[in-house]
């Protein structure tokens, strides 16, 4: 188990390296650069652009920029600055003076890590995922057990909505109902220390995953329902609750757990839509706007973080299989 874990973790290194390389090539292939500004106003002039390029090493050949990003390079003052291998994600070109790790992980003064952009996204993502699990799995289970009854149809209806309605529509819809009409919350949350402010963003963010989880649970429960071992269990005269939880749910959960891993990674790395609509101070907007702004190190940093989290989530899922499904064993 330990060797397996270590091997899997070591595999992360080549994965991150290749992802960094591909992302690097793709973003530099797109025309434009970090100093390209709103066209209708004064552009950054050539002199300043040269100065900035030189300062950030963007005047160097691409291969050298890449090695500088990954391993490090000497800067203008002839001092060696270590790169990604030391956990340095590089300077943001857009928010000058701040590094990517500052922007993502540094909380405001006198606050805990939970108040950094990543901290906010992590909390919201976690909340959304717990909602998806705590509602999605039971809902799917009940729908399967009561197949073709009104319960099943209602659950099917709601989950279809969740899967098909885009989150920006859902967001404005919920805002209009709960804020504008019922006045239960503010349209624009004032204070993120107030728990009420988190309900709508988490609901919008988690709804899609919740619906998908419910449908998947229902489908795999239905499949398990007709298995021989379930009939055997019933024939043995086991209590229905034991049949459902021990013999059915446990087997039905395998595909669900598979999707929950990547879903967790996607949820905690933030959502552009949620942050745009609720003014949520997470990292999703930083990720998406960085692409349009050609904020190279920000694009790389957020992409690598995402890949890192997906890999970790997948690893966790693989470990969980062993716990859920006795047929799966790790070959050392």
């Amino acid at each position: 188990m330990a060797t397996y874990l270590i091997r899997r973790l070591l595999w992360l290194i080549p994965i991150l390296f290749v992802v960094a390389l591909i992302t690097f090539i793709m973003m530099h292939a797109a025309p434009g650069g970090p100093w390209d500004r709103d066209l209708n106003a004064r552009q950054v002039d050539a002199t300043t652009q040269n100065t900035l390029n030189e300062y950030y090493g963007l005047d160097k050949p691409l291969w050298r920029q890449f090695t500088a990003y990954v391993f490090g390079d000497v800067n203008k003052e002839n001092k060696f600055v270590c790169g990604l291998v030391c956990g340095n994600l590089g300077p943001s070109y857009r928010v000058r003076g701040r590094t990517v790790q500052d922007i993502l992980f540094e909380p405001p003064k006198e606050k805990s890590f939970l108040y950094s952009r990543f901290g906010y996204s992590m909390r919201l993502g976690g909340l959304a995922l717990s909602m998806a699990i705590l509602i999605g799995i039971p809902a799917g289970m009940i729908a399967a057990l009561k197949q073709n009854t009104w319960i099943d149809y209602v659950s099917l209806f709601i989950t279809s909505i969740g899967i098909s309605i885009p989150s920006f529509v859902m967001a404005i819809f919920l805002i209009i109902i709960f804020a504008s009409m019922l006045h239960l919350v503010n349209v624009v949350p004032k204070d993120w220390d107030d728990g009420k402010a988190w309900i709508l963003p988490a609901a919008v963010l988690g709804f899609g995953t919740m619906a998908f989880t419910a449908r998947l649970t229902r489908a795999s429960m239905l499949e398990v329902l007709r298995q021989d071992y379930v009939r055997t269990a019933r024939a043995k005269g086991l209590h229905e609750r034991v049949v459902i939880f021990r013999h059915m749910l446990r087997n039905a959960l395998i595909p669900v757990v598979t999707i929950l891993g990547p879903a967790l990674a996607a949820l905690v790395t933030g959502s552009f839509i949620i942050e745009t609509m609720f003014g949520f101070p997470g990292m999703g907007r930083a990720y998406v706007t960085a692409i349009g702004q050609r904020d190279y190190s920000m694009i790389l940093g957020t992409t690598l973080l995402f890949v890192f989290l997906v890999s970790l989530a997948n690893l966790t899922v693989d470990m969980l299989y062993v716990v859920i499904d006795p047929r799966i064993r790790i070959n050392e």
Partner: protein
Amino acid sequence: MRKLFALLSLLVIASMALAACGGGAAPATEAPVVPAEPQATEAPAEPTAEPYHGTLRINMGSFPDIVDPQKSSFVGEIAVLKLVYEGLTRLDKDLNTIPAAAESWEYNDDATVLTFTLREGLTYSDGSLLNAARFEYSFHRNSDPATAGEYASIADDILGAAEFRSCAENCDAVRDAFYENTKASHADGAACTGYDDEACNTFTVKLKQAGPYFHTVASLWVGYPAKQELIEAGGENWWLDAANHIGNGPFVMTTLEQGTQVAFVPNETYWAGVATYDIDYAYIVDGAVAFEAYKNDEFDIVGLGAEDLGTVQNDPTLSAEANIYPGSCTFAMMFHQQKAPFTDVKVREAFAMAIDRDAWVSDVLKGLGSSTLTWIPKGFPGYQDGETRLAFDAAAAVQSLTDGGYTVVDGQLIGADGKAIEIVDTFSDTPRNRTRNEWLVAKWKEVLGIDVKLNPVESTTYTALTKDINTAPQMFILGWCADYPDPQNWLSVYWKTGAFGERIGYSNPELDALMTQADAELDSAKRADLYAQAQDMLVAGSPVAFMWNNVNSYLVKPWVKGATQTPMDSGWIGDNDPLSITLEAH
């Protein structure tokens, strides 16, 4: 079974823990850093009729990337700086340049030396002295290559500024030369001794050529006097801490929360008076959400976008709260002067005359804009009323093609040499731009019979392409928004050979000469006349199809009184003169 229970309980515990992190109150160990409460809640010391003191809540859209006078360049960044700091001069609501930190200014006889005299008794919001040495530092920092400010080039009219700014190494000589041209002194010319020198009230700028408009440039944020000691102590990130923004403007920053909020209270020491309200900038990017929040009385001022205009116009309350007034930009269909067929003025004229600008404004812009046939917009010095050249005229447009020896066969433009010329309209790919360009292409098809191809590209790609004469497309829409209200900024800064107009290959030596003459003219009437001639010459050559001017559009709650409408409002209605605003109890 035990494993399953373990798993389930793990999930439950994990989710509860996460939920606890997310919701609920802040952990008790963390002191919430909240902005000063609006003073309205405090009981007034004396029971006299205190005026209502509320908070003006404004949605600003995107959060600033950087709030540093010598590095910022975006509207939302300037809207923050403008409250906290003040330049030597400022603009009034009619875009005249009026005294601000400087009480007066004077040019020498050939307008190459500009001398500002500061107000007596100027202080920062913390009560410390603000003397001319502070402005000297700001101008030095702006042109310093180490600052590499994105707007620094705006001060290149100062003698030696461009040289200093572009200096890579061994810069001492060019730096000292530049410092000689931007100097603080006593009124009698004696050298200042530092930031505590009370007699240091004169700031002199030497220009590289006559520049009778430079006192207007001095109103811009690049000259705002942020404190050297705070900048140096805070390092490159000094601006992140609200406490470092000790300024001389009408407001004091109390909170700067990354991504969510910037808050201000009135500056009690501001020379022109003390505002009677606080300001809260919020950052909601989505227009639909901001509109809902406005309707729910959570904002007092929000931008009004085209998508909400219909709703607003059909609602008697909201339509009374809409403020729509001219902005500071002109947009044009740019034609590449060196790419066929737009090398030919006849083709340019045909395409220009085929655009019905009034229909464009009403159908496409939904009224949020005004049509134009000239360059300098209405409300700006240098605007010329009554321009009619190249107005929409379908027959004349077709005639212009015929005159040039062109024919149109099967939607293709055929040149005099019998060859077909493909025409492509390139635009930044957003749904809005798609609608706009589809409309134009349909118009050209209808009037000229030509099939123009649409070429959507990603927005930064578009910027990169259109910046350079070699990659600039055949035709594309582009605008110019004023840096400062002077015809020099519209004409010389844009259309001189080698300036911004170069991207479409525009160069007119005759116009260059005229603009250079105008720039240096000291007699303001003569100067205005020369610029009028220049603009006339520009329009006559029809390098582009002038199309429309933008508008500023805001929804303003009825309890916000006295907001002035200025074309150069940067971020919200009335931010050019916040002291004229009062809030009524509501």
